[in-house]
């Protein structure tokens, strides 16, 4: 679609420098440097345990890190609760297992953060939520509860919930990995629509079709490091590192 030098992508919105994270003795992220420009669509892939989920979960501080710095839209992430909440109010996340709130109806799932975190009125929040539900194609399910929907529908609700706070950045943590095969495309379609609208996206996913279609940059991680990053066409057609070639062979052959 486009490359990182595209003039649409002007300013850095996420700056990660020298990021190191350990789980106990296990070195999960090794000296990661990554800069994301506003509006950029980034796909992160790699074998399981490579640290890709951990990396994007550091960006909204769901994971603490021990060394390095992350600056999100001018706010540096530290232990300071105010700064964490500031970042989280601009960054939304979509999880592998949806993580909808099962005790709340769909509409209440969507309006919760706008009302309590962004101080919107119930009326405002509800109108916006219905618009978003319409966009992901499930407006008629607004009064139902999460467990009454299919996996694909639940994930679309989760995307709508994430969008409800008008975030600048969307993080996707393997959004299609827990879905039945026939439901993957309905979720990807929504994500592709979203990508076209210029919101900054970081997606951990194995959906290489999605990456080819919309990504500005694809990042390959292994053993807690960024091994290779490139534009999608170069990434898939001319992988430089041996490990990426091996990885691509493995996922593309089946």
């Amino acid at each position, binding site marked *: 679609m486009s490359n990182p030098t595209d003039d649409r992508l002007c300013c850095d919105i996420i700056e990660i420098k020298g990021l190191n994270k350990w789980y106990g003795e296990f070195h999960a992220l090794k000296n990661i440097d990554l800069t994301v420009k506003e509006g950029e669509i980034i796909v992160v892939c790699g074998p399981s345990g490579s640290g890709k989920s951990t990396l994007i979960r550091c960006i*909204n501080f*769901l994971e603490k890190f021990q060394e390095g710095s992350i600056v999100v839209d001018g706010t540096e992430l530290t232990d300071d*609760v105010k700064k964490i*909440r500031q970042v*989280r*109010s601009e*960054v*939304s*996340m979509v*999880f592998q*297992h949806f*993580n*909808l*709130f*099962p*005790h709340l109806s769909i509409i209440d799932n969507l309006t*919760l*953060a706008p009302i*309590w*975190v962004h101080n919107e009125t119930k009326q405002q929040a509800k109108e916006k939520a219905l618009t978003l539900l319409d966009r992901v194609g499930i407006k008629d399910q607004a009064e139902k*509860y*999460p*467990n*009454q929907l299919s996996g694909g529908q639940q994930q679309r609700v989760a995307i709508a*919930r994430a969008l409800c*706070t008008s975030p600048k950045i969307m993080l996707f943590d393997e959004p299609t990995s827990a879905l039945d095969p026939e439901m993957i495309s309905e979720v990807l379609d929504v994500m592709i629509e979203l990508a076209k609208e210029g919101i900054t996206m970081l997606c951990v996913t194995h959906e290489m079709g999605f990456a080819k279609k919309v990504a500005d940059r694809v990042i390959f991680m292994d053993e807690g490091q960024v091994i290779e990053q490139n534009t999608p066409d170069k990434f898939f057609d001319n992988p430089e590192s041996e490990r990426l070639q091996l990885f691509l062979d493995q996922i593309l052959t089946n």
Partner: protein
Amino acid sequence: MAVYPLKETKKAPQSQTKAIQWLKENLLSSTSNVLLTLVALYLIYLILPPILNWTIFDANFDLTADNDSCGREGACWAFIYDNFKMFIYGFYPEEELWRIDAMFGLIVVMIMFGSWIKKSQYRMHYIIGAFLVYPVAAFFLLHGGLGLEVVGTDKWGGLTLTIVVAAVGIVASFPLGILFALGRQSKMRIVRFISIVFIEFVRGVPLITILFMASVILPLFFSVGMDFDKLLRALIGITLFQTAYIAEVIRGGLQAIPKGQYEAADASGLNFVQKTTLIILPQALKISIPNIVGSFIALFKDTTLILIIGLYDMLAIVGAATSNSSWLGRNSEGYVFVAFVMWVILYSMSRYSKKLEVRFSTEHKN
């Protein structure tokens, strides 16, 4: 290769009437089941007729009878009738009994009003208001003050006292239990330490000990001349006891909440209080309903222990009535009555808990 057309959906076969099918499936499904059914029938045959004979067929329902004219073959229900007021109201002065009726009447009216405005947007305000106002109103009605004659707690007794103790224990221990459950999971070490010490200490001690401690040790903390009400001491003891159990029950519910719920709440930017009250607690409490109610039922039964510090709950007062010289030897009637009243109350609680579970269930609502 072949292609198969879709088949039509058929109704499940129903060859027999429901009753026969039920019998077959539940009572006669196998040889051992048939045997068990027969044994159970035999036991029922042994137990049921004598019970019915004593309580109904041989019983004396003449409510004006006295102990001698009542007969000894069956129950003498005149005993209950004669002492009924004492069983229910304890030693409360006769001319002030309307206050107890008013207290119970008020809660019934308030609950009915609450269900009448079920759909109103002010329902939550009403419920919170009711929880704040009713205890105060109930206190003044029962205890007196504000123009009503003061009736000391030494006059309280019977079913009234049982319900007061249980209700205070339940209402006070619930929020405290939530706090201690959260405290035990807190990241702040001091809070966690205090919670664990409190919970484990109280759970490691029988209620009787706590009641004794509350009635003997608690007054030592206060100045000598201060009159520290005996009932209040019992209430504090029971509340502390119940708090520890409720805290553990709710902790179980908290642990059942998937990590993803915490993460989704965090990622949305909710702060700790919002996350806890809007996301985590509603789900944890819902899971805990059966255990919470089970714990409340246990508490209700445990209230009978307040006898040992000299308070006369329903069981104690019935015991006292059976040693009254004009009704000697009527223990069975008294205890059957207590058992029946307790059962009605506790079974209602248990049914109500089932109803709550269904109402809060979002699993299969369509």
